[in-house]
């Protein structure tokens, strides 16, 4: 069957079937709708103000590579007036980050954006290699995830930025909605579809790719010839996210709109008022000043557990209480530097892009 014309411009030959809408469109129209939808997401949520310093969480993977490209494009096209930075976290996994950090460094040059790379080793005194060596592979995601989140905030504070944008896409959000329902995590379910998250003392964080399908991100990278590194973590079959991910992919195959439909569902409901009243109030970590649900934030609890050889301390409530019962932390314990936001002025030297 001869290819039809693009249903949008009705002039060019259709080259792809858009995963999100099923429409047959041409390459130029695909770029247009892809970028315009991200622009709509940004403007509808009023994510930025002129003069904002914005860090792009860059891993060298497809999402952040495309995000950096699109942010630069939109910033110029629509005159957002943003100062864009690249912020990368080096978890310290031998062979894992080396190649993808090269991609980030190349982005730094291509897009003329300053880059800051912050390592776990620098911040926590532990690399993921050393953590895995101590705790094994079973719970290492907990450490990596908690440490990465805080590292991004701290890296952003060092850069003196107002805002971090991450490459979380529609698939990630839909998957998180399902996962939080299945494990009964009502607090996270309530906030996982929010485009912006910001604690009292944390840097504003947002997801401009909230409505962007993973497949379309790959498609965009393909047509724009952007190269990236795949940094997938293969989960054990029993993991919650693994279940949710497989299920979501099946749903998408059955009906591609399932991803955006789940996000729509997640945006349409909220936690009932009487349930909200029972939620924990956010506190500040007494050791490092970061947001926390208990006296100590999750990262400090995990780090103390590592330092004291009690690895599951931050994983289960029971282990945390056990550690508390064993007495106060020794005075020579390595801790995370106190968290202080310094918006507007960088607290560290950052690598400027070569002219």
């Amino acid at each position, binding site marked *: 069957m001869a290819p039809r014309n693009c249903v*949008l411009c009705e002039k060019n030959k259709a080259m792809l079937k858009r995963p999100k*809408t099923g429409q047959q469109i041409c390459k130029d129209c695909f770029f247009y709708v892809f970028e315009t*939808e991200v622009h709509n997401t940004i403007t509808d949520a009023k994510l930025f103000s002129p003069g904002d310093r914005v860090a792009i969480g860059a891993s060298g993977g497809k999402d952040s590579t495309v995000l950096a490209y699109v942010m630069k494009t939109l910033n110029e096209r629509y005159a957002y007036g943003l100062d864009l930075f690249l912020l990368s976290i080096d978890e310290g996994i031998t062979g894992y980050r080396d190649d993808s950090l090269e991609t980030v460094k190349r982005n730094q040059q291509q897009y003329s954006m300053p880059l800051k790379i912050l390592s776990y080793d620098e911040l926590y005194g532990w690399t993921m290699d050393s953590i895995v060596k101590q705790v094994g592979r079973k719970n290492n*995601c907990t450490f990596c995830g908690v440490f990465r989140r805080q590292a991004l905030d701290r890296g952003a504070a060092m850069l003196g930025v107002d805002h971090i944008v991450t490459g979380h896409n529609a698939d990630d959000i839909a998957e998180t909605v399902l996962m939080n329902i299945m494990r009964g995590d009502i607090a996270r379910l309530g906030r996982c579809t929010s485009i912006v998250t910001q604690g009292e003392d944390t840097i504003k964080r947002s997801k401009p790719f909230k409505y962007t399908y993973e*497949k379309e991100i790959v498609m965009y990278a393909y047509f724009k010839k952007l190269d990236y*590194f795949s940094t997938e973590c293969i989960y054990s079959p*029993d*993991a919650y996210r693994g279940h949710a991910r497989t299920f979501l992919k099946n749903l998408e195959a059955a009906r591609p*709109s399932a991803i955006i439909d789940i996000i729509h569902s997640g945006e*349409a409901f909220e936690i009932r008022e009487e349930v909200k009243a029972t939620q924990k109030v956010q506190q500040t970590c007494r050791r490092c000043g970061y947001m926390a649900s208990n006296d100590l934030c999750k990262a400090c609890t995990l780090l103390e557990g590592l330092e004291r050889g009690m690895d599951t301390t931050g994983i289960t409530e029971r282990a945390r209480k056990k550690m508390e019962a064993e007495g106060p932390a020794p005075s020579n314990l390595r801790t995370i530097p106190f968290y202080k936001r310094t918006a507007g002025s960088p607290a560290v030297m950052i690598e400027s892009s070569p002219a």
Partner: protein
Amino acid sequence: MSSCGAPAAEGGEALMQKRQKYDKSKNCVRCKDNIGNIVVRHAVYCKNCFSPMIAAKFRRGVEPYVNEAPKGRRRLKASGNILVGLSGGVGSTVILDLVNQSYFAPRTDTPGGKEHPRFNERIWQKGFVCYVDISAVFPNMRDRTNEVRNAAKTYDALEFILVRLENAFDDSWWTSVGGKPSNSELFVDFADQDLLITAISDSNTDPVAALRTFISALPTQTAISQAIPTLVRVLLLYTARHLGVSHVLLGTSLTSLSISLISSISQGGGFTVREESDEQWMAPGSTTPIRIIKPLQDVGMKECSAWAWWHGLPVVQKEKLPGTGQDIAALTKDFIVGLEKDYPSTVSTIAKTCAKLAPKHGSVRRCLLCERPIQEGIDDWLTRTSIRSLSIGNTTPRFSTARLTPSLCYSCHTTLTSKSSRGATKSTSSFVRLPVWLSAGLQSAEYSMFQIPDERDQPAEKTSAKDTEVWQTRKIGQQEMKHAIGDFLIEDSGQ
């Protein structure tokens, strides 16, 4: 961002720990004497203790909703009749048995004497069992009406009512249940995102043909699996209204509820997630709502099956719809039933989590297809998040033509318009007759804003790694990217 996921990134458990099937001993947790016969979410019950436990759960699920003013009177007295929806499946068969046993069958085992008021006055004056036959959907489906009728015969205190799915397109049925006959037959174009409405005067009025046209015009198998229960539900509700019913009881078990919750959320039904477990329906023009109760929503499918087996209930084998299996409802069912085997608590976690949710905004309108609340602003949200036209903001929206879209909830709109990634995209118009209540709703005063165009008589042309994690870092080349999106490339679209 295809993150490593970090399921426990903010402190949750990374793994779902498998537990023993039962907690302590093999003896019944209730009487402590008998050896258990069934394990219900890690607790062991013997056969003798199991039945009262389920019956008590059932009554707890019904009785708080019986009186109109719950605190006003102690005595249970409903404002209308009761209708049990019977599909012939396990859940509805069990609930019919429980309704009969608890509220209609003569009871001799209760103290209080023959003159006690509980023997003289029923909570509901009349009871009905309603079966909606769906065999007309496809030509070769078996009509199970007689089997279901025979199964319901045992309960002679409840009157059997038969409704057929094609009644949704039958004006005479609509009039017989008190509906206002519509002035003209309304049709909708499923090929158009806006779902343009037109009126056709000279049309085929055979309800079966109209039903089949409606079903075959739906864009995906998921839409078919979603549309049929929606039609069944609304047919039940209008039948209930006609019979003066105040309470409709459905045999949705905890397992079925979890399936329908996840399935509904996956189809964009988040705004009405509460209605999946607890719903009050106000018929147009009525002042008293009908309460739809699912009293088995705390009872798993396994317990329902055990009840049916131990009480010798005739469960009619359900016939599978042709082509089902890869639709969202079936995938969700497989997923949840699979989870329930290994992690029995997950099913109740899903239901409990969803019970803590409420719609973000209030609603003043209801969807004309499913009769559930509509969230406002859907049209705009869709336009902003999924651009389908380059003319956004440059042209006047198509309000001059009658559109069904604004009268539908997100979920129903998705059902009628969302296409599959496989198969050809329909490019020609396919005008399909609308269900009777939808036509009536569109022609009511509330929706008189929809002007039927003058030319309406002439439809327009139109890896698995056990217990380990492996970090993999690979450069993704153009070929691999192409492979990932290959299904969506129309031809060799390498630049």
